């Protein structure tokens, strides 16, 4: 067996994270630590592992993405005889803990689904647990935060009441447009979906936008199609990717993990393309792939998907419009705006930049208003700053950009 090691550090976690941010600003690297570990997850090598360990000396201050990928990386490297000389025990422990949690979840969720079916509800597994079941993955290699179940939309309200009447089941108070969170005996977290993702309901779109829902379909018929395909692994993967790529922007952890999941399934683009095309989301998929060229380069499946998506001339009008909206999203993001993940979602939902600004201000107001721990004067300052940021700062940036572009054009003309 090969043993690899890296230098240790004794800094505390918050200091280490601050150090990482300072280092990144001073020495920006083209590949983030998350992406580096994702590359090792897709193409495990001792050299790749050593490179990541050199940037994470004591397996501490892990990002959520890194924590999510580590059990798979550890498992795959061990299969090749590569052992970390210092942290093998802890890495094995992460794998075992994830195995333990997922086996408990699968057992509990399986019984819950049987109970729901017996009561007449139609329910499908979504996301991580479905991938584990359908692809036969080692449950220790794919962390899942909770159990995701999608109930037939017309049965959702009654199913939710049915579950809340079960001993031990409680609502956490987190209610979103497409799902709500429940918890069982403070152990099992259940994400009960009415929709597979937010864009599956036209009510969550900007006026005139049809992205996310195939033409002529409604949430109920979407469930019908998924129910008919419940044994199709490609359907399970497609739903998982749609959820990840819609809800999280291209630089966020869920998207990186989703790319690794996709590679792991080995499912070709051709199997998921019809659904993605019908939902006008090809530009979003392309953006997610383009955000991580170093990860895509490691995977034949992802490379082939990227190549297939490059043919934009076949895109629909809705997709062309979405592509333009994504372009403005990325141009603005490149200027360093503190975009919350909502901005990506709002871009896909068809909202223009000024509409997203207004939503940001309202979101910020709601957020600060709901937290009783924030003093009133702090809330007021936060709201004023947010408003100024998303109005004055944006306008100033637009003027500056227009000025630079005009000067560049003038300079080009005079040459």
């Amino acid at each position, binding site marked *: 067996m090969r043993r690899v090691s890296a230098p240790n550090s004794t800094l505390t976690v918050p200091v280490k994270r601050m150090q990482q941010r300072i280092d990144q600003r001073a020495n920006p690297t083209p590949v983030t630590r998350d992406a580096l570990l994702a590359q090792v997850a897709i193409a495990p090598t001792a050299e790749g592992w050593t490179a990541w360990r050199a940037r994470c000396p004591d397996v501490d201050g892990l990002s959520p993405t890194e924590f999510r990928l580590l059990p798979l990386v550890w498992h795959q490297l061990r299969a090749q005889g590569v052992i970390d000389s210092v942290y093998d*025990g*802890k890495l094995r*422990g992460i794998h*075992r803990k994830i195995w*333990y*949690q997922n*086996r408990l979840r699968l*057992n509990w969720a399986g019984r819950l689904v049987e109970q729901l079916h017996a009561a007449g509800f139609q329910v499908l597994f979504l996301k991580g647990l479905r991938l584990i079941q359908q692809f036969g993955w080692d449950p220790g290699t794919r962390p899942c935060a909770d159990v995701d179940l999608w109930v037939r939309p017309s049965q959702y309200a009654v199913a939710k009441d049915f579950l809340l009447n079960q001993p031990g089941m409680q609502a956490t108070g987190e209610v979103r447009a497409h799902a709500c969170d429940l918890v069982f005996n403070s152990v099992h977290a259940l994400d009960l979906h009415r929709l597979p993702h937010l864009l599956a309901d036209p009510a969550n779109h900007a006026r005139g936008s049809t992205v996310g829902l195939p033409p002529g379909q409604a949430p109920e018929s979407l469930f019908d199609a998924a129910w008919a395909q419940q044994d199709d692994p490609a359907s399970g993967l497609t739903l998982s990717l749609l959820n990840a790529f819609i809800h999280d922007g291209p630089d966020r952890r869920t998207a990186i993990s989703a790319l690794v999941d996709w590679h792991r399934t080995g499912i070709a683009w051709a199997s998921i393309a019809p659904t993605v095309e019908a939902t006008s989301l090809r530009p979003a998929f392309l953006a997610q792939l383009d955000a991580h060229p170093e990860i895509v380069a490691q995977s034949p499946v992802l490379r082939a998907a990227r190549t297939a998506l490059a043919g934009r001339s076949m895109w629909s009008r809705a997709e062309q419009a979405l592509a333009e909206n994504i372009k403005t999203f990325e141009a603005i993001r490149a200027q360093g705006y503190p975009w919350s993940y909502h901005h990506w979602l709002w871009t896909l939902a068809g909202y223009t930049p000024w509409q997203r600004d207004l939503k940001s201000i309202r979101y910020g107001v709601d957020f600060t208003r709901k937290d009783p721990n924030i003093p009133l004067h702090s809330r007021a300052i936060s709201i004023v700053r947010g408003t100024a940021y998303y109005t004055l700062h944006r306008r100033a940036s637009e003027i500056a950009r227009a000025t630079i572009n005009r000067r560049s054009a003038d300079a080009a003309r005079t040459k």
Partner: protein
Amino acid sequence: MLLEQNKLDVEDFGDEVVMLELETGTYWSIKGALIGVARALLASHDSATTLTWWNTQPEAETEVGNAFVQQLSEHGLLVDGDQAPNTTFAEIHCEPGAPRFTVQDDLADLVKLDPIHDVGIEGWPHKA
């Protein structure tokens, strides 16, 4: 007595066999030569004949084997079987290393234990 496998979720990782008691969340880890005992029980061998066979194997330690079977019994995981127990040990393979096992039965503790910061060098579920 036979292992009550309906109550368990088991995974054989080669150098470790882990068992999860589905009703209680109790987590068992079996390592080293003791893996042979686990594998024999999972192949529907009787516990008494398994220990007799195992005590003839390299690195077997009688006390550890007896303690393991005793704990299984105390957890209600050994039952009188309806079917005739397996009698062939030819295909049961013991792993090298000192036989050892741990049983962790605090579900809340197991779930909450941070696998990076709260554990020792052996990792979860062994606390620092």
